[in-house]
């Protein structure tokens, strides 16, 4: 497996072979006095699509960001493909190449064209040739339906187009896992569909995905599971059908009544 090669000789890897793609055990995150994540435990299987829902400020973004260590967790364990990514000998940049992340605000590099945005990481991190990177990049742009925008700078793209380029950029590293943090919240309604279509296709192709989103249609159709986060704790974990139709949890019902 990919991470095992990165461990130093003589240092025993902490393994946790439950066969899960992601395994989170008692994850805590504090910002100074603010206790944001209060012990999250869950696991995600290969090719599973997990939607993360919950009220604003409940810690959804922080949860995702802890899992590729954009935020340093305060305590707990995170295993990706069985490897403890919080262990001191882990090369976190190596881990991050296996986890694609898509942000609410796109965060494309404004000084690079679409194709250059996509090529940057494969060329600089994976050290593949310009030609190969371009070929792969164009294939990805084709996948998100933006081949004709390859040579265009982000500022000339609509929000939906920018987000699709951002997805292609993340996919260019050929990650095992994709995280989406409210990928459609910053978009005008008429552009949400095009982004969700791309995500739906990825789900069909068997990508392991964690999606913070409140797009009910997308979640019902594409998600295998919903994690319901309130105040830094998972209060519910089940299939969309269980949660939308049979939930007895007060907080869940209250939240669902607000967004439907």
């Amino acid at each position, binding site marked *: 497996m990919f991470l095992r090669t990165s461990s130093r000789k003589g240092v025993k890897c902490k393994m946790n072979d439950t066969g899960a793609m992601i395994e989170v055990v008692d994850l805590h995150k504090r910002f100074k006095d603010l206790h944001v994540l209060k012990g999250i435990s869950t696991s995600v299987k290969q090719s599973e699509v997990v939607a993360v829902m919950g009220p604003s400020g409940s810690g959804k973004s922080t949860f995702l960001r802890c899992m*590729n260590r*954009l935020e340093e967790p305060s305590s707990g364990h995170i295993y990706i493909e069985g490897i403890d990514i919080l262990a001191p000998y882990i090369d976190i*940049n*190596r*881990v*991050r*190449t296996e*986890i*694609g*992340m898509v*942000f609410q*605000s796109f*965060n*494309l*590099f*404004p*000084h690079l064209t679409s194709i250059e945005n996509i090529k*940057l*990481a494969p060329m*600089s*991190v994976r050290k593949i040739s310009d030609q190969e990177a371009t070929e792969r990049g164009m294939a990805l742009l084709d996948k998100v339906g933006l081949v004709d925008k390859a040579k265009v700078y982000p*500022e000339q793209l609509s929000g939906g187009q920018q987000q699709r380029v*951002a997805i292609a*950029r*993340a996919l260019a*590293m050929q990650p095992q896992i994709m995280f989406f943090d409210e990928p459609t919240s910053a978009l005008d309604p008429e552009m949400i569909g095009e982004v969700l279509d791309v995500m739906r296709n990825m789900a069909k192709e068997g990508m392991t995905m964690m999606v913070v989103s409140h797009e009910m249609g997308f979640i019902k159709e594409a998600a295998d599971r919903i994690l319901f986060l309130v105040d830094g704790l998972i209060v519910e974990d089940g299939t969309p059908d269980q949660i939308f139709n049979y939930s007895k949890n007060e907080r869940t019902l209250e939240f669902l009544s607000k967004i439907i």
Partner: protein
Amino acid sequence: MAQPASSQTNISRLSDLKDKVGHVPFIRRNSFVYGSLSLLVIYALFLLPSKGSPDTVDLGRIVIFCLLLLVWAFIIFTDELKPEKLKTIMVFSIFIIAGWLYYRYSTARWGEMGFLFFNLEMVQKAWPTLVEGFWTTLLLAICAAIMSTVIGLLLAIFRSFNNPVLNFFIIAYVDFFRAMPIIVLMMLIYYALPFMGIRLSAIVSGILALGLNSSAYVSEIFRAGFLSIKKGQIEASSALGLNPIQTMRFVILPQAFRVVIPPLVGNYVASAKDTALASSISIIELLKAGLSQKSLLANPSPLIFVTALYLVMFVPLTRFSGYLEKRMKESQRQVRL
């Protein structure tokens, strides 16, 4: 008020008139202004002394004439009712009169103007030294620019780590070199350091002083450039697996450079102008070359030539950096829209 309408309009018409005529002070009225102007012209024609260096009484008359002229100009300039054209004429006439007075009464040797100030023969004699001085100035400016860029960039990068200890030293460095006058720094390096066993040639001392001073400003410019980059850019780059050095090289620096180039060019121009200070530690740069040739030939033409050269070099450069600044502001506005 219970006054009949007719008398009310009467009163208001009267006060209107008063506003128009009665409230214009005497000295603002056209009759007074033009009258006094005629008197001033007569004064100039008959009372001013004739050409040559004036004695005290004549000097007094000249001073009074100038004062009256200024009072007249003041009255016209502070009056909105006077036509623009008159004000334009005023400006030109003051320049012409001042020039004419200077020409007429100063002790300058006007006949020898050409020989003294614009003597091409003297410039020709001084030419080899001037050319050498020019290259020295260029060397100083370029070396200082390179040095300040390297140091400034490194400082800004270290500063971005946000390490409190590192920050303390960097801030101390920046404060020190921004507070220290360049000329003092030069003298310190050239005249004081030898006593500590550090003996540097004049030119190295000059480059060092200019470079150190400029590096403080450059580091602040780069820091502002880094701060202008949104956190999301760095997060996106990290999330793709780029390490901090790759993030710096491929994401932060290219974006920061766009923001930084206009103020950076402005800083290089300012620093290039400061090379003239190197004349104080006996570096034969452009100014010193002009000065020494002036003494040698007993003629200020080389100095005048040097002055002109500075203008020819720096007016376009200053313009250029202003243009860059303006263009960046415009492109920023476009992005924001």
